[in-house]
């Protein structure tokens, strides 16, 4: 009868490779925390003068309090990213499903590469395209919408003469976040257990019903985290927004006028070149707000994913 008890083994010998690897992994893990803490500390320390200085002494504020300056920017950041996500997520899921479940294998591979290629396009190029090609091309549509559907608050007139509105900026942002969301969704959909899919088909489900009952529920946390990654990019996007958006107004829901709220990142880029003295601190303080927003967004995403743990790939 074999001895079932595990033989008392000596502690495994630690080879140098193990030590180096665990050491460098630990260092990498600590480094990211240290960098984050360093960034947060920098933002907070540099923001202090904004609280202690009289708003009248900060040129950019022009006498108004900090919060009324930053409120339209926060709104513009969230609003443009939300619209972008609203457009990008359904399209991304569609593309990902097409690649994972509909397209012939060879086409799927090629399409995957092309989508990934989109992610490699620099944001300046998207900015140029959005401002010089998309905006003039889409402007007649904006005029039509304000004329015929102007009673809807979103489409309130007058339409911008250049088409460089928050909707255009959101479309550009949507195109920019598309590859990230698509790539992640595709990977998640491919992980769906084949048994689930086959079971659904065996019960008489059509392909769409199979996707609805097996693939989508399984992939939901993946879709959410992909969207949040996309949202992260949209919130922080600077150059494309600065080049496309005509940012000059306060908080408004109108999508098609010249007066749009700016975004925090684009505003920093636009103002920083000529900023001096406490103006720089002011801009860094708005950066701190953006930092906090992204943190909150990510925490919400984690919470949503955590709540639906039962669907995650772990089981």
């Amino acid at each position, binding site marked *: 009868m074999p001895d079932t008890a595990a033989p008392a083994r000596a502690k495994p010998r630690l080879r140098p490779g193990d030590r180096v690897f665990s050491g460098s992994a630990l260092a990498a893990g600590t480094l990211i925390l240290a960098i984050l803490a360093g960034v947060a500390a920098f933002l907070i320390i540099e923001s202090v003068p904004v609280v202690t200085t009289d708003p009248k002494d900060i*040129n*950019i504020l022009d006498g108004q309090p900090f919060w009324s300056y930053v409120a339209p920017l926060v709104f513009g950041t969230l609003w443009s990213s939300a619209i972008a996500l609203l457009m990008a997520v359904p399209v991304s899921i569609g593309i990902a499903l097409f690649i994972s479940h509909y397209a012939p294998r060879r086409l799927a591979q090629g399409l995957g590469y092309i989508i990934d290629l989109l992610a490699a396009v620099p944001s300046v190029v998207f900015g140029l395209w959005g*401002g*010089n090609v998309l*905006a*003039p091309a889409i*402007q007649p549509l904006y005029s039509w919408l304000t004329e015929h559907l102007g009673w809807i608050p979103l489409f309130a007139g*007058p*339409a*911008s*003469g*250049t*088409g*460089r509105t928050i909707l255009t900026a959101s479309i550009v942002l949507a195109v920019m976040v598309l590859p990230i969301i698509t790539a992640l969704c595709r990977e998640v959909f491919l992980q769906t257990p084949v048994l689930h899919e086959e079971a659904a088909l065996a019960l008489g489900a059509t392909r769409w019903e199979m996707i609805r009952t097996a693939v989508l529920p399984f992939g939901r946390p993946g879709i959410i985290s992909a969207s949040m990654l996309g949202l992260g990019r949209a919130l922080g996007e600077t150059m494309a927004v*600065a*080049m496309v958006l*005509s*940012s*000059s*107004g*306060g908080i408004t829901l109108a999508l098609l006028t*010249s*007066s749009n709220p*700016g975004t925090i990142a684009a505003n920093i880029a*636009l*103002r920083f*070149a*000529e*900023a*001096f*003295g406490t*103006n720089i601190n002011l801009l860094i303080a708005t950066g701190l707000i953006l930092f906090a927003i992204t943190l909150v967004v990510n925490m919400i995403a984690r919470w949503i994913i955590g709540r639906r743990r039962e669907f995650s790939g772990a089981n």
Partner: protein
Amino acid sequence: MAASWPSRPTRHCSAERRYAGGVNRPRLAVARAVIGAVAAGVAVTTILSGCAVNELAVTSNSKLSGTIFGDGASSQRAAQDAWIAAFQIAHPRATVEYDPVGSGSGRDAFQAGAIDFTGSDRPFTIEELASGTFASCRSGSPIIELPAYVSPIAIVFHLDGIDRLNLDATTIARIFNGQVQRWDDPEIADQNPGVTLPSILISAVHRSDDSGVTENFTQYLHEAAPNEWSWEPAGTWPIPGGEAAQGTAGVATAVANGHGTIGYVDGSQARGRPSVAVKVEDGYVPYSSAAAAAVVDASPLETGRTAGDLVIAIDRKGAGSGTYPVVLVSYLIGCEHYADPVQGKLVREYFDWIVSDTAQKTAEESAGSAPLPPAFAAQARAVVAGIR
């Protein structure tokens, strides 16, 4: 830049070559290649950084040596780049650095003594001069301000089939403050008989970034149309709302690509685009560097300043027919007596070069600016000669 050097320089500074030795196992070939590339990169960098322009043996007999730093207006960037390149060819041992960080930063840094000179889209006000101190200057020394960079600001628009419009200051102000909203408004039509104006909305495009062009344009509106434009001149657009675009190039493309758009851009960006002829006295004057130089020529110096403080009180209401009043005047600011005479000598030579006819011509070619009128240039040269 290298191509414009007069003679091919011989490098007399050497760079130590480094080899990544001791790594020769075949499976580390890739790593070795990477390390080798890095080492080569280090060597190249050493050659480049070790051989700055002033260390090259160029055949020039100039004894001038040293380095001066300037921060300031980004509007002067193109002109400063051209001036510095030519200056350093003539004086191979001298280095001038100009960092276009913005007028406000430049003035602050100059007062703090961090830099030797600054470029600014507005001069120091008399109050600032009275209360402020300048750490680079010898105590008690006044500063000098020279209008070294003058550029017309063109008001460009885009309307199908129209390439010139006549407008007076009041109408321009009312267009940009939103009171005149359509192109066929009688106020515009009355000034442009024979032009068929479309009945479309006006989209007035302004700069979304902080800029000296905006500051000078709003100053024009404020002085030439005070009833319509009550806002004080500022680098950021004072009115909330409206169409905004980034940079002069951003405004130019937004205007060109839009429908019924109008905007203001630096003269260098306006070539070949339809632009507004501005009413001055009884005539309408299109923008040009000659007309911009004429308004500087016809405007008096601001009174109440020291002899070296050449601040032009641009007469924006009309300094005589043929002058174009919408101009950007950017100043070159330095000390009359530097705390360090070596720096003073270098600044004097550099400023003397900038106010020379050749340098002004260079700036006109590279940046589209207006050359200083001869009378002014002579005055500026006299001031520069006094820098110690």
